[in-house]
């Protein structure tokens, strides 16, 4: 995110002009823009004009509109942010109070005006504008018969391709079928790999699978690259890392990000932080379940007793349209930080955040055990 101009006061009103430059930035914008804020951007609108003769004429006009946000929608695959609201900027084509949907795309600047820039909003803004935190990673997760390609960004994991075929098992005449089916499968995966993995963007490409599928594919990949002179692969051979995972499903991404070789590359990024933190939560859960808790009620009670060491939250909770709820969580984060704890905000677009969202979206590692939490209804 490029910040063009900023003009705000802490916990006060103000505006920021910014330009999203990569797809992650739209996600940040999605988290920043809340109902009630206003957004100004250049947009295109179809305008109906009535001629003197009475005939109607539709025309697409490019204009600058500012809307009071009522609804916001994030399209992960398309890379578009749609903001719906009432117009508040007088214009010759669009009256004040008319509805309009702004589409924010990459490289299109917009101005966000808020009544209150709270500490969390500023934190998101800071993160978004930090260029060094980018962690673009391509992950190919495989198991025999199933392959998926993911791009792991700073705060968004996108699924790029999914290849599923049935591979016959061995024995009898099927043994020949096995070889050809596997070959066909690899061929498809290779095509997807070439199409979706751009080594100019990603820091490295990780191939993860249980068993030896990854080695088999790696060998196939290099062989084909030699044969067909696939320059991008030959040149970036060293950027391909093999990692062992327990399955080819999406939740195995956690194991990929957890692997030491990958961790080294992405260690200072948010994704890595999330993984480490979540790992700790699960570890505590198994070592001493009384020192970990989840669910809003339990965490709140734990916080009242100043027991929260690390707070894990999903950004979903902050996107709440309901202002008091958002404030409640902002206050919770503040109070945890005030009592010397840490707070991590997970992106629900990452696999770790997804998992956390399934655990009600809020969890905490405690300083001391609170066994009586069990007795409180969740």
């Amino acid at each position: 995110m490029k910040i063009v101009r900023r003009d705000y006061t802490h916990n006060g009103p103000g505006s920021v002009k910014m330009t999203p430059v990569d797809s992650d930035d739209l996600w940040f914008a999605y988290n920043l823009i809340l109902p009630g804020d206003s957004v100004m951007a250049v947009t295109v609108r179809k305008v109906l004009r009535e001629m003197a003769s009475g005939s109607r004429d539709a025309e697409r006009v490019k204009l600058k509109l500012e809307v009071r946000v009522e609804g916001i929608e994030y399209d992960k695959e398309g890379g578009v942010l749609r903001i719906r609201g009432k117009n508040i900027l007088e214009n010759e084509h669009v009256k004040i109070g008319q509805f309009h949907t702004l589409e924010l795309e990459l490289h299109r600047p917009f101005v966000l005006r808020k009544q209150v820039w709270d500490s969390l909003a500023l934190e998101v803004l800071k993160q978004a504008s930090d260029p060094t935190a980018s962690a673009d990673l391509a992950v190919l997760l495989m198991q025999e018969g199933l392959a998926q390609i993911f791009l792991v960004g700073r705060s968004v994991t996108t699924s790029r391709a999914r290849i599923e075929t049935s591979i016959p098992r061995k024995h009898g005449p099927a043994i020949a079928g096995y070889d050809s089916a596997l070959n066909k499968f690899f061929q498809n995966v290779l095509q997807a790999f070439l199409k979706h993995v751009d080594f100019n963007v990603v820091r490295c490409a990780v191939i993860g699978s249980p068993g030896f599928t990854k080695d088999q594919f790696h060998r196939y990949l290099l062989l084909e690259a030699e044969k067909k002179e696939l320059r991008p692969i030959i040149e970036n051979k060293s950027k391909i890392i093999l990692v062992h995972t327990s399955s080819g499903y999406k939740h195995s991404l956690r194991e990929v990000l957890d692997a030491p070789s990958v961790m080294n590359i992405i260690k200072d990024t948010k994704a890595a932080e999330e993984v480490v933190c979540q790992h700790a939560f699960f570890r505590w859960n198994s070592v001493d379940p009384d020192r970990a808790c989840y669910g809003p009620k339990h965490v709140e009670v734990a916080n009242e007793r100043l027991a929260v060491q690390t707070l894990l939250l999903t950004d979903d909770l902050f996107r709440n349209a309901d202002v008091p709820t958002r404030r409640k969580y902002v206050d919770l984060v503040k109070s945890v930080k005030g009592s010397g704890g840490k707070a991590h905000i997970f992106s629900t677009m990452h696999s770790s955040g997804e998992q956390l969202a399934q655990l009600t979206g809020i969890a905490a590692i405690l300083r001391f055990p609170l066994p009586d939490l069990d007795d409180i209804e969740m």
Partner: protein
Amino acid sequence: MPRKVNRGVDYDEAYDSYDDYDYEDDNDYSVDSPAKVEEPQQKVKKLWSCSICTYDNEEGMSVCDICGVIRNPVAGDFKNSNKKTAAFKFDAPSPDDMVSTRLQSSKLNTQGKRGKQNASNSTDTAVNGKLDSKYSDRPPAETFHGSSGSIEGHNSLKKGILSGQLSDEASGSSNPLKIEGTQGNADDDFSGQKQTAPASNFGKMSLSDKPGNSNALDSRKHKSTAEYHPDKWMLPDKANDTLTQLNLAIVGHVDSGKSTLSGRLLHLLGRITKKEMHKYEKDAKIQGKSSFAYAWALDESPEERERGITMNVAVAYFNSKKYHVVILDSPGHKDFVPNMISGATQADAAILVIDASNGAFEAGFDGSKGQTREHALLIRSFGVEQLIVAVNKMDVVGYSKDRFDLIVTQLGTFFRSCGFKESCILWIPLSAVENQNLVAAPSDARLLSWYRGPYLFDAIDSLQPPARDFAKPLLMPICDVTKSSSQGQVSVCGKLVAGALRSGLKVMVMPSGEVGTIKSLERDSQSSAVARAGDNVTINLQGIDLSNNVMPGGVVCHPDYPVAVARHLELKVRALEELAVPILNGSQVEFHIHHAQAAGKVAKILSILDPKSGKETKRSPRCLLSKQSAVIEVVLNTPVCVEEYSNCRALGRASLRAMGRTIAIGIVTRIIQ
């Protein structure tokens, strides 16, 4: 276990009364004229399918075009019959009357072929009941109870047949196994009463069965299994085929010698020719892996041979004195447990191979790294009750009795905790490499000096034949698929869980719901005419779209009785020991059921159960720890073919895995969506 929730919620559903009506009607027929027993027609379509040959006849025909069976007179549409059936219920005879009419009808039926079939199966049922009561987490007292019941079943066989028949009619199923399942699920006092007054429990039994049924019915399921009547050819003819098929899984920790043992067995039994064996030996030597020569008979892919480990379940066949044995040689490496699950769910019995050498046994038995425990538990969760423990590599430890005894004691305690019965476990010391105690009594003096038991081949024959569901509608989970585009056919292979197959039969492949015709059947690469429940076969299907994905994990079934496809399930599970991470609400898991697997999450932990009594001890707990039993809801990302455990055991057994480990095993108690 009691399924109170089900009963409470679903009992009043319209479908139940409808169900009731069905077999009421069915019953009347069998009293009047048993020959005319027919399925009531429910299809709203213009076609009606004959109950005998399943041929789709035109609406106007009153007799089947092919086999001449008279169409059921009640062929009118049942769509608006819900009200009618409700009214009908009021006029229904009192439970006692129902019992007496059924008594009559069953007596009539005993003379028919079905009676014979039932008689042959009822002993199986008793055995199964005995074994199963153990599995269903009852307290020891209850187990004793159950077994005494089955003994009684043996003694008064005649009575057993009669009551089996009776309950058949009552719960509307033609299969004794199913009844037995219901019993397992019923209250304790219920099973107690059953012995003294079987008849008086009738109403109850049929009631408790129904909620499960109505839940499983999805919109596509037109008919309940109650109306299914197997054809004559579907039932086994004992005179014709003396050998029954036995699916024998070979499991164990990696490098314990599973493939070598299987290869050696096949070689000794002459299933591998000298020439082939010579070739394996030569090739293995070239690769510097001469000790793997026997394993190569089963590990065929170059990848497996190069690495010296099995990756996929290999299938091989041999005949013993009593059985057509199908060997399922499973991979032991922990990364391939999913393959092992999908391959070995077919097993009727298992050989657990243990590496006796110093350190190796301990490594395999280690809870966090070894696969011995995981495999044993998984095998148990597939419903395998009979286990042969082959303590392999005895040559390495000099055929030491102490070593053998140590292994027996350590493993024995563990097996008891997983629910194996001591009497169903056979311990056999052997050496696959030195050919000791495999197909003949040992020749080595050191082993002879203390071992007097059976050798492995003998032990296989001593296994009890498994019970089969011949009389149920066809169900065959697909283990493997090969497509041949040149012939335009799809070959699917798997084990028939229920029913029977022959070429020319129309079958439906779920979840896609496509109907195809069976062109030919293969068993051990030889074509065969008929396959029945329990058989491991390859079927060539025609009329199935090749581009359409027929995948392993699908189910071949009877077109009128399609299997349910669901993604939201209620399970009763037991968490395994030494969980790395407790199971939380929202934990991400891999879900395995028969040959299907899917990613999903634990949507909700409903309640924790007492492992002994099965009573609920805690509602909506925060997490599920090691060794706890619980009722949970699971939501899958992709739907799978599934049946409730009470309806079909093989399709109702599931296991949950996460982070490369099996975390819980259980059964499907309810299909929610």
